[in-house]
């Protein structure tokens, strides 16, 4: 009964905590939207100014059409109102709604990033923990070497090297893209084709990201293993496996939660260099194109999307942290 009582109280406190954090995220989001709007509204020049073929009269007409002649705060409120109705805006360059323009590209980027992320988090966790359990062993030293080698490689060089070896010289994998040119595969054949095209960019992203993360995991686990309570666990006669996984690892994972929260926007933002070199139709491409064309509605919507994801990632990290670390006060 006592146990149920405590669990019940904890649950209520947790619900209030989550609600409070969500409410606190709203002004943050509004602030971000205002900041983003102001940056774009007061940057000199826009899509219409950038077009030298327009007569002054035509330009003025177009500005009136898009509402660019109104005061900034009115435009902001208008933008906000549309956002609340799920309307992210209209691309001037492509003449389609932003959601329609970004949807597929964001999904492609997400596909690439999510697969890489699962892999490099898994690899970093495994190798980092193994290295910390046997510090200064041969494995640990080799890993340190590999990590520094991987981290000091320039991205584009790595991409080109992989393309040359695996795609050009050996011909095992496609050079780039997401599908072979003119391919119209369906069902499993489609999945297979996309998967083949993903291999090289995924390898690149994993090699780029796993190194640093491995160092984080190793440091965190190393620190946890040096804690007094690990010695207590050993003094109780627990199996080394229990000591490492139940006592040390649980504590070592706590600081990684915040890091995982920061990965949320990275899942959708597109890896620009990698996507460009492997010709992956991700959002990184579109980002650069729209930047060059000053297609502000797209840029604003995309920046706000990433800002919202950053806030959400932090929020989720806070909540997970509160769930797993009893020391966090729920107020």
């Amino acid at each position, binding site marked *: 009964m*006592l*146990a149920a009582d*405590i669990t019940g109280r904890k649950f209520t406190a947790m619900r209030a905590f989550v609600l409070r954090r969500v409410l606190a995220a709203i002004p943050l989001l509004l602030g971000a939207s205002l900041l983003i709007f102001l940056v774009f509204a007061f940057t000199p020049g826009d899509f219409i100014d950038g077009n030298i073929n327009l007569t002054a009269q035509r330009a003025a007409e177009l500005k009136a059409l898009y509402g660019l002649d109104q005061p900034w705060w009115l435009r902001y409120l208008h933008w906000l109102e549309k956002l609340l109705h799920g309307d992210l805006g209209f691309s001037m360059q492509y003449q389609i709604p932003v959601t329609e323009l970004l949807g597929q590209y964001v999904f492609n980027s997400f596909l690439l990033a999510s697969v890489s992320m699962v892999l490099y988090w898994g690899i970093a966790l495994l190798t980092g923990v193994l290295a910390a359990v046997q*510090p200064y062993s041969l494995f640990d030293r080799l890993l340190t070497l590999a990590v520094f080698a991987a981290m000091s490689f320039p991205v584009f060089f790595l991409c080109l090297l992989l393309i040359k070896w695996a795609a050009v010289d050996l011909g095992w994998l496609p050079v780039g893209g997401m599908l072979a040119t003119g391919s119209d595969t369906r069902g499993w054949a489609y999945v297979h084709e996309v998967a083949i095209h993903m291999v090289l960019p995924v390898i690149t992203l994993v090699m780029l990201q796993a190194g640093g993360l491995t160092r984080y995991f190793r440091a965190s686990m190393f620190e946890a293993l040096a*804690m*007094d*309570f690990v*010695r*207590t*666990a*050993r*003094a*109780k*006669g*627990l*199996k*080394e496996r*229990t000591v490492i996984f139940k*006592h040390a690892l*649980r*504590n070592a994972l*706590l600081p990684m939660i915040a890091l995982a929260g920061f990965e949320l926007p990275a899942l959708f933002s597109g890896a620009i260099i990698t996507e460009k070199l492997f010709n992956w139709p991700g959002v990184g491409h579109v980002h650069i194109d729209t930047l060059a064309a000053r297609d502000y509605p797209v840029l604003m919507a995309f920046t706000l999307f990433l800002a919202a994801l950053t806030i959400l990632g932090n929020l989720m990290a806070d909540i997970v942290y509160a769930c*797993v*670390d*009893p*020391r966090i006060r729920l107020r």
Partner: protein
Amino acid sequence: MNQPLIEFDRLSVEIHTKAGIVRAAQDVSFSISAGQTVALVGESGCGKSISALSLMGLLPSAARVASGEIRYQGAPLTGQPRETLRRLRGNDLAMIFQEPMSALNPVLTIGEQIVEPLIKHQRLRPKAAWVKAVALLDKVGLARPDKIAESYPHELSGGMLQRAMIAMSMSCQPKLLIADEPTTALDVTISAQILDLLQTLQKSEQMALLLITHDLGVVAQMADFVVVMYAGRVVESGPVRAIFKHPQHPYTQGLLAARPVPGARLARLPSIRGQVPNPMNLPEYCSFAERCDQAQAQCRQGQPEYVSLGAMHQSACFVVQKREFA
């Protein structure tokens, strides 16, 4: 005489560091009988914890037993497979530490941590183990033990945590409990209560207690036998009465003289001048020579042998040797 529970037999421990080899314990010999309280005293860094940890098989990875051995009920402990020692730890041999706040896992409840040895060694089912854990918390004098079992370490005070540590260490009725400066991190009144508890439990459970402490007042009150260490070596050992009435080694004499108020810590010794020598390069002669006011030429020419001074009392010092054989 019957067999001692624990025998340290010329144990030497080396710690390999970047700066060099630390000889943390050298030729440490003493024994603990069943149900006996042995106090291990000496200044910080003289090798008390390292000696205790080698008994538990919990030496830091940089440390290794260089020579000698420790025996438990006549069978060697040192050099045994890890698994053999693991089965003894928490079951026959238990240990509590200096900092109760950091000795418990912050993300597990007290109860979850106490049931672990019960499930591991006594094969209790989780439910039964929990009931026993609550009973143990009650036994160490914690009010509302059921509530304590569900608390996390950060919700309790240092004194309560040390009681919980004691409950945990007692869970499998060990033959020996090592308490490594169990009250150094606690304030005076709490400290006295914890020591009382240890003494009561030691009597009621008839277990041996190896008490590492700075506090000679505590030694006088609790110990049957005293081992005095200096710079990794045992310089004097004997029954508590002999040590307090007739301390022979100049270091022991200094420790006793430097005991102004009962309960005061011995971290600094006003009456022994100088400092503990660097454990990285200990001299090949008596390492107390630099600080000893009775030192003679002979003292810098070799290690003094142990001199027997009657029933179980012995000391390693040239001056004592001369006096005895004069």
